[in-house]
């Protein structure tokens, strides 16, 4: 075991080199911990890009040094999020921005952080019972309603539909499902065959869609409350645009071919880049400029369809997405 000690001395030396560089800066620094749900989902990477862009612009504007401290867990785990909130406080971060995997689990940690003088803001997924000072994100109930009304338009007000609902534990997703169901009640010709939960990876989600299609061959509409399955390419060939129409939340680069092919004629895009960008603005408003920040700021959904595909593609590119297909950038 003593050898293990030696191994760590070596590790330590590497650490010295790595850390040495970070000692150089001495300007007034504001460190904002960014804790999204997981570090593999591209929407959160876009949020990070947005946050970092805002940090850079605002640093120059106000003559301070704003640093984004990325503390997102590699896999979704609310306990780990709570631990990371506490760590951020212990290590002297000045503010915390979090998208809650499970509101109940992080509420305690948010309140502890606030009690120790670190303001907390939530985005995307809120913890409404906590002492966070602000939330930025879509109105989930409205989002669900919008998905349904778009889908009803596509189906001409009648048909059998299924809801793809992501993981069961996320309160924001559950509210979207509620909104979708609420809206569906307005259309007597539409019947919901089921709400389907799954692991939130593109593969698992796509597999779930195909499983449901096999079980209910007469489905002619899908409401995706998140874009997971459209990050894969398989549904491009496995779904027939003449038989089934999809309306989905999110419109990232990988999903755009589905619009073009008519499988998903309408995507309701969250401007995920703005999660980071707007939230950082709000935090600086409160922390540095001492402005009043409204408790809830609503993000508007962007309706993406064949008509505005080119504009949206260019917008994505401008937000730092590197994987936008060239052909869409050239569209009018």
């Amino acid at each position, binding site marked *: *075991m*003593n*050898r*293990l*000690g030696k*191994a*760590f*001395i070596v*590790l*330590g030396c590497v*650490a*010295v080199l*790595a*850390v040495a560089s*970070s*000692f150089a800066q001495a300007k007034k620094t504001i460190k904002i911990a960014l804790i999204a749900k997981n*570090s593999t989902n591209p929407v959160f990477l876009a949020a990070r890009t947005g946050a970092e862009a805002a940090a850079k612009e605002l640093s120059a504007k106000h003559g301070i040094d704003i640093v984004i401290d*990325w*503390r*997102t867990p*590699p*896999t979704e*785990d*609310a*306990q780990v999020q*709570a*631990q990371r909130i*506490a*760590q951020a*406080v*212990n*290590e*002297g971060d000045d503010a915390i921005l979090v998208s809650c995997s*499970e*509101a*109940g*689990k*992080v*509420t*305690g*940690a948010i309140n*502890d952080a606030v*009690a*120790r*003088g*670190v303001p907390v803001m939530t985005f995307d997924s809120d913890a409404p019972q906590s002492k966070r000072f602000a939330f930025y994100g879509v109105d989930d109930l409205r989002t669900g309603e919008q998905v349904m009304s778009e889908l009803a338009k596509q189906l001409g007000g009648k048909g059998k539909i299924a809801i793809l609902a992501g*993981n*069961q*534990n996320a*309160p924001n997703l559950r509210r979207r499902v509620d909104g979708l169901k609420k809206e569906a009640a307005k259309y007597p010709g539409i019947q919901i065959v089921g709400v389907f*939960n799954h692991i939130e990876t593109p593969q698992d989600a796509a597999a779930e869609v195909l499983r449901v299609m096999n079980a209910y061959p007469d489905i002619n509409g899908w409401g995706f409350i998140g874009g997971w399955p459209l990050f894969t390419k398989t549904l491009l060939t496995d779904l027939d645009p003449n038989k089934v129409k999809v309306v989905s939340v999110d419109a990232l680069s990988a999903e755009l071919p589905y619009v073009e092919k008519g499988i998903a004629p309408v995507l309701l895009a969250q401007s995920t880049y703005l999660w980071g960008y707007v939230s950082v603005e709000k935090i600086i408003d409160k922390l540095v400029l001492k402005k009043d920040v409204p408790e809830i700021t609503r993000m508007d959904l962007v309706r993406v369809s064949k008509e505005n595909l080119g504009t949206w593609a260019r917008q994505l590119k401008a937000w730092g997405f590197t994987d936008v297909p060239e052909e869409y950038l050239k569209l009018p």
Partner: protein
Amino acid sequence: MHPTIRRVFNAQQSGLILVILLLGAILTVFAGSHVDRMTGRSVNNFLNFHTLTQTATDASFFAIMAVGATMVIISGGIDLSVGSIYALAGTTMAMALRSWQFSNPFVTVLVALMLCLGIGLLCGLANGVMVVGLRVHPFIITLGMMWVFRGIAFVMSKAESILVPDALTSVVKTTFGSSSALYPLPMLVMIAVTALGAIYLSRTVMGRHIYAIGGNSEASRYSGLRLGRILIGVYALSGLTAGIAAFVGISYYGSATCGDATGYELYVIASAVVGGASLSGGKGSAINAMLGAVLIVLIRQAIRQLHFDQNYEWIIIGSAIVIAVVLDQLNTRLTAKRLAKG
């Protein structure tokens, strides 16, 4: 060297403690410092009560379960279901309290504790009875039960996130009267469970029998040991520690879902193994398992505090586990060689 000093240095604990202290020292030196918002004093980013307690708290949930898992591993088995037992005990407790709504906080805490421990114990007993009765390898049984237990929690809770009463949170997050936001209870429970586990393994008849079975189950049978009963007891204890961890963890974080502690069984097994437990049985210790859990959490902490790219977390932890076990085996082999030479 004086023989007792040499024994202290040769003991496995000392190796682990040395590594933990070393890593702690590295963190203290390189983690930098910040100005505390409340007091205005400069505080080391690592060496402060908040970070140290937080690290111990993060480790406590793994460590409590690792004490039970070590017993299973010493007996020559394995328990993959502890994370699911944690989730099942937690959701059942939270749902029961939600529907019963006790007004007395003392009763609330007592019932919650009984429920978590009871369900943990029952799940463990079920594992043990199946391992012994069906004569199927414990890997398979507990792999299956891992999904079954989580599935029961899933169906019962309808995958909702259930808040637990504040009474629980205020007990587990007690500051023992101090005004600081320090919550040492999970750490104290971890230490208590470890101490009890260590005493159980080294000082009781059952503990000795667990080592004997793992060392040579045939010779144990030929010595009149009741293998079945002992093994059932071992799995029951593993389940019990998962129940304890669930009580502390769910109360600490304030809500329960069926997705809690997903994948924790692997951290738990890793803790026991880093603590020197041998998967072929007969070897391991409760204290080392706890230290193993602390080390793993500390490595996670280090990645963050030393500003390594956190995307390397899995690679670093995985490598550390393999390195720790390889070094441990090397050490054992060298000791054996030295013994053989006389």
